[in-house]
């Protein structure tokens, strides 16, 4: 009997909870949705000329035809390959370099000021050099992404390691940890939040650099699709590419975020170990 009495109350609470949850999910989408709807309406009413700005529906159609012909998938896969390999190469170099300079005073003196100097060069200014050295093939595009990704990872890893709580390191010493244990159990986890911030930032740099590099003597990739469309004022393809950038950007941000939540779950109050 008691349970029966309690039920309506529970349902009410649950309903309210579900509604607020729903609102949390939907609220971020309201502005983009409103913009797209009004844009579509303006296009239908001829307020926006389709040669200047095609309607969302036209963009969707272009996307569908590009998907059906396989062109979009291929270009996306090629861009993804360039982006990821550049990221992996640049990320590893930046990370290892930062390990060297943050853990060894000698290497720090030797390398850090040079790296800091190079870091301030806008990496897109290196395009002519990259073309001279690596040509116009894949390696030039990948190396441009590499350079773009290298520095944020370097800076954040360096900074993260340098700012690990010295009390914790002393604690490790008093437990007589060897260098490897100290590194693996204290320094890396301590630096991880900052490193992951670098990763997130580098993912953004990765896409912007890739898009620029794909406008150079390219014959494939999303950046190529967009510049190619640009030379013929193919606005709906250009818009499609812009949407794809936004999507890829959001996607990599999500990936970085979920990496953060899974690796840094100890930061959350009340977080329990996974196992």
């Amino acid at each position: 009997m008691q349970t029966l009495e309690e039920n309506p109350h529970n349902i009410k609470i649950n309903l309210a909870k579900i509604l607020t949850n729903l609102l949390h999910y939907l609220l971020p989408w309201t502005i983009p949705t409103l913009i797209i709807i009004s844009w579509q309406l303006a296009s239908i009413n001829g307020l926006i000329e389709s040669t200047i700005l095609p309607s969302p529906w036209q963009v969707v159609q272009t996307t569908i035809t590009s998907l059906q012909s396989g062109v979009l998938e291929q270009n996306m896969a090629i861009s993804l390959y360039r982006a990821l390999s550049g990221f992996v190469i640049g990320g590893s170099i930046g990370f290892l370099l930062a390990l060297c300079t943050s853990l060894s005073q000698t290497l720090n003196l030797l390398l850090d000021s040079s790296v800091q100097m190079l870091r301030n060069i806008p990496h897109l200014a290196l395009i002519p050099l990259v073309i001279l050295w690596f040509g116009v093939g894949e390696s030039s595009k990948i190396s441009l992404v590499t350079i773009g990704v290298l520095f944020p990872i370097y800076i954040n890893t360096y900074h993260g390691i340098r700012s690990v709580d010295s009390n914790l390191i002393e604690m490790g010493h008093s437990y007589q940890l060897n260098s490897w244990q100290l590194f693996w159990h204290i320094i890396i986890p301590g630096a991880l939040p900052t490193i992951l911030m670098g990763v997130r930032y580098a993912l953004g740099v990765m896409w912007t650099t890739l898009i620029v590099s794909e406008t150079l003597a390219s014959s494939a990739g999303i950046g190529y699709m967009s510049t190619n469309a640009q030379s013929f004022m193919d606005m709906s393809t250009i818009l499609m590419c812009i949407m794809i950038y936004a999507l890829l950007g959001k996607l990599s941000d999500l990936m970085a975020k979920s990496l953060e939540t899974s690796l840094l779950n100890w930061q959350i109050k009340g977080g329990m170990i996974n196992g």
Partner: protein
Amino acid sequence: MHKLVKRLFSTIFLVFIIASAVWGYTLTREDSSSSLETITIGYQAGDPIDIAKTRGQFIKKMKKAGYKVVFKQFQNGSAEMEALASGNIDYARTGDTPPVTALASGSSITFVAAGSSKAKGSGIVATKSSGIKSISDLKGKKIAYTSNTSSQYMIMQVLKKAGLSTSDVTLVDMSQSDASVAFAKGKIDAWTNWDPYTSSAELTYSGAMIVTGTTVGASNRDYIISGSYAKNHPAASKALIKYLGQDMTWANTHKTKLVKMMTKSLKLPKKVVERMVNRRSYSLKAVSTKATSEEQAISDSFYTDGITKKKVKISKYVLNLK
């Protein structure tokens, strides 16, 4: 349970991403049937090389002749000239102006072949609202052109013909894509360019072609240019001219097919492509003395106007395959 689902989902997602990247990698590796000598050709969208590439015959014939052809698309002629100079491409199809300025700046390039005149499709298009009817109306107007392209020579020749100086008009140097937006929005009065931009400006934005290259002797031919490669590989150059020539003959005799093909690849309205194709003919042959003297005229005129700093004798740089 929730955690498990989440983990499963991220794993699948990760595998998908990596698999796509690997697929992308395989796509970038051109099939390496490698005993063939590789020739890299630079081109721009919609040009004769693009036709040969899309038609697909050229690549097969070259393969039979022992060459593996790789195409690289460029945004403009200056980028192609840079790539030639650094040896990243072996041949390039450009308009008539980039090789002239490249020579004047000391690059060592060779004219390998020349196309037929595109004078009818190149010229100045005026917006409807500008009220420009003839070249004398250009006085005081805002005219867009793109430096280091045929449009630079074109606008100079037109101004000379109209008896105007550069201070009588407002010249704006813009990229093709910027200029087309400016034209569509009426931010400029006239636009100096070539097909398919001229026909697009005429048909899509109801502009009027007030003067063409025919009037001022600007042919705006296509040229095949090479760095040192053509000189060292005469056989390759010969094969290239021969097979490209065959594609051009095909283009002249199959205009409906050509229009269909280019409409698709350029994603332009059919009527625009039609107009472009119908007011020109296609060819690629060894460089004639007529073409050489046209290039010489451009070179001299640029030198006189101070655009280039060096006098160049064009005939010295024309490839002689005999």
